[in-house]
């Protein structure tokens, strides 16, 4: 008797593995780290298989009303990102005694994110979002101190409230289409679509529905912040990108929300005085950029997530977290190099992955696909936003030196090193090489000059921008009621815009 696993068996086994591993790790704590490595390795393999099309890309389980999974090229970069971030977080805590609940939750989180990325019907997406939400909440309250409890509670309460709106939207879709398939969304009413989108915007940390992020990142440990920016965000982005692919008419709306989100994040990031909060505002800004062209959004999210997670891991090891005294500190190379490389990647400096992602985005925006009347303005808007991004990260640039006092302090962050290496090495994978080839065909020198110009303009802008004591005050929008109000405002605006 021979056993021939089919492609769908493999996919199901891969999705189940993290949860089984979590149970096993609860019984045999010693196995926690090896099991996470196994889960990370299988997710990496699945990301590769999804890109190459080795496995069936569209699975319909349990009949036409059942679960639909799509293991396609949209899922591939996001799977790669979440696996690498989990691996980095694991490496980060390798030298210390294993923290049993943390390892368990990491397994659950990875399982939830994997499912959310490949899920392709409204209900599977809902369940996966809730698994991710609960594991993130438990990770946030790990320390059991009141601020952590409050931040975790905020996250869960808002996340669950918007997911209730999502369920209502799913019910409306079913009433109209008698199906929970994403493909039916094209014909469904604007009301249903608006309810689905507001929930996913909150989960994907976009615009004012993402306002929960800065304070969450400021309170949570670096490892959890890295997971939120690199992994948890994928769970919200993947369904958004799928909806954008299924419903063509939603493209312009996503583009406007993306532009607004990018601008909002930049203005707040430029005024911020603490590193983690600057990184969080910049995440809100970058998630807006991902939505500009959903077709290349996954790749952009990959480049951003790797760099952002690395920045969180490094910044936690620095003696100074306030940007006011930032330039006065002596930064040793072991922290300075990953910090510089990761922030340069997000700002779009070659030859890092962020440069390639930004170039792809600008090519896609300039192409005929941008269906706005104001299409000519979009590349200019992207250019200005890129200068702003460079200015935000210019605040972190600080040439490392080998000062005597720098020799003390924390050792290098292994997780950040892994992520920065990935930012460099992913450039020589076949699909990135293809993108490079296309770029060289279109005039490499122009792109390089443009990038240099952007970085210089950003550095100049940062010098001009009033920060520190002579800076400006922005409203504090991060109270609990502000977060709820932001989500409700976005929801109401979407209902009004889409129900025309």
């Amino acid at each position, binding site marked *: 008797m021979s056993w021939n696993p089919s492609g769908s068996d493999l996919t199901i086994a891969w999705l189940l593995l993290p949860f089984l591993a979590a149970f096993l790790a609860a019984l045999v704590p010693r196995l926690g780290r090896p099991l996470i490595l196994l889960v990370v390795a299988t997710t990496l393999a699945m990301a590769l298989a999804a890109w190459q099309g080795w496995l069936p890309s569209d699975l319909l389980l349990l009949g036409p*009303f059942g679960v639909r999974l799509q293991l396609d090229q949209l899922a591939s970069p996001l799977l790669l990102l979440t696996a690498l971030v989990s691996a980095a977080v694991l490496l980060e805590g390798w030298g210390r005694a294993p923290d049993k609940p943390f390892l368990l939750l990491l397994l659950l989180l990875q399982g939830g994110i994997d499912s959310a990325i490949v899920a392709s019907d409204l*209900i599977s997406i*809902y*369940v996966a979002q*809730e698994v991710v*939400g*609960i594991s993130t*909440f438990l990770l946030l*309250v790990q320390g*059991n101190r*009141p*601020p952590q*409890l*409050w*931040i*975790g*509670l*905020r996250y*869960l*309460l808002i996340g*669950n*409230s918007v997911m*209730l*709106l999502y*369920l*209502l939207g*799913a*019910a409306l879709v*079913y*009433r109209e289409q008698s199906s*929970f398939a994403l493909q039916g969304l094209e014909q469904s009413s604007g009301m249903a679509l608006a309810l689905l989108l507001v929930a996913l915007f909150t989960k994907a940390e976009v615009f004012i529905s993402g306002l929960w992020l800065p*304070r969450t990142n*400021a*309170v949570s440990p670096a490892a959890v912040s890295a997971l939120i920016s690199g992994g948890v965000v994928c769970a919200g982005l993947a369904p958004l990108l799928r909806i954008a692919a299924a419903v063509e008419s939603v493209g312009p709306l996503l583009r406007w929300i993306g532009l607004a989100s990018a601008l909002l994040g930049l203005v707040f990031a430029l005024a911020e005085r*603490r590193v983690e909060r600057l990184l969080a505002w910049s995440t809100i800004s970058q998630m807006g950029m991902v939505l500009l062209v959903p077709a290349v959004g996954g790749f952009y999210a990959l480049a951003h997530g790797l760099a952002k997670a690395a920045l969180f891991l490094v910044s936690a090891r620095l003696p100074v977290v306030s940007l006011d005294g930032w330039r006065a500190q002596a930064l040793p190379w072991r922290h300075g190099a990953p910090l510089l490389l990761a922030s340069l990647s997000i700002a779009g400096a070659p030859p890092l992955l962020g440069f390639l992602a930004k170039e792809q985005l600008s090519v896609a925006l300039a192409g005929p696909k941008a269906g706005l009347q104001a299409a000519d303005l979009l590349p200019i808007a992207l250019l200005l936003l890129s200068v702003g991004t460079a200015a935000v990260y210019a605040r972190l640039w600080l040439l490392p030196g080998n000062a005597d006092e720098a020799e003390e302090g924390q050792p290098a962050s292994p997780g950040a090193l892994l992520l920065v290496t990935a930012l460099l090495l992913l450039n020589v994978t076949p699909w990135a090489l293809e993108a490079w080839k296309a770029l060289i065909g279109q005039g490499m020198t122009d792109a390089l000059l443009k990038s240099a110009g952007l970085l210089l303009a950003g550095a100049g802008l940062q010098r001009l921008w009033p920060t520190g004591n002579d800076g400006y005050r922005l409203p504090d929008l*991060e*109270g*609990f*009621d502000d977060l*709820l*109000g932001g989500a*409700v405002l976005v929801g109401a605006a979407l209902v009004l815009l889409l129900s025309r």
Partner: protein
Amino acid sequence: MAIVDAIDGFVVMEALMLLTVFTGLLGLLLRRSLFLKVMGMDVMGTGVISFFVLVSARGGFRTPILDGSVVFPGDNDWADPIPQAVILTAVVIGLSIQALLLVAITRLASVDPSLEAGRLDQLGRD
């Protein structure tokens, strides 16, 4: 009576359930106490769950279980099992999340017994 006959019962029910969701959302937004906010979320959840049950009852009310022995000739008014099955999952998830929230609230009550969201916000600030 003609007006009453003209009103579709389903439309009325639907409107009432959406109103329930809306009321819950308002409670979540306007109440200052964290505990009442969680209750508001629960009211929202009740509205959403009832809406799913209503959607599945559009075709009829009969429990969709076939056992072969009983035959209903010419009778097809089964309830739709798909939304019912789906909402069961959501009920379980909603309950567990509420339990988690209440545990966290119990802990926070020892820090600030008033449980006012505005005062608890000071906790997350640097």
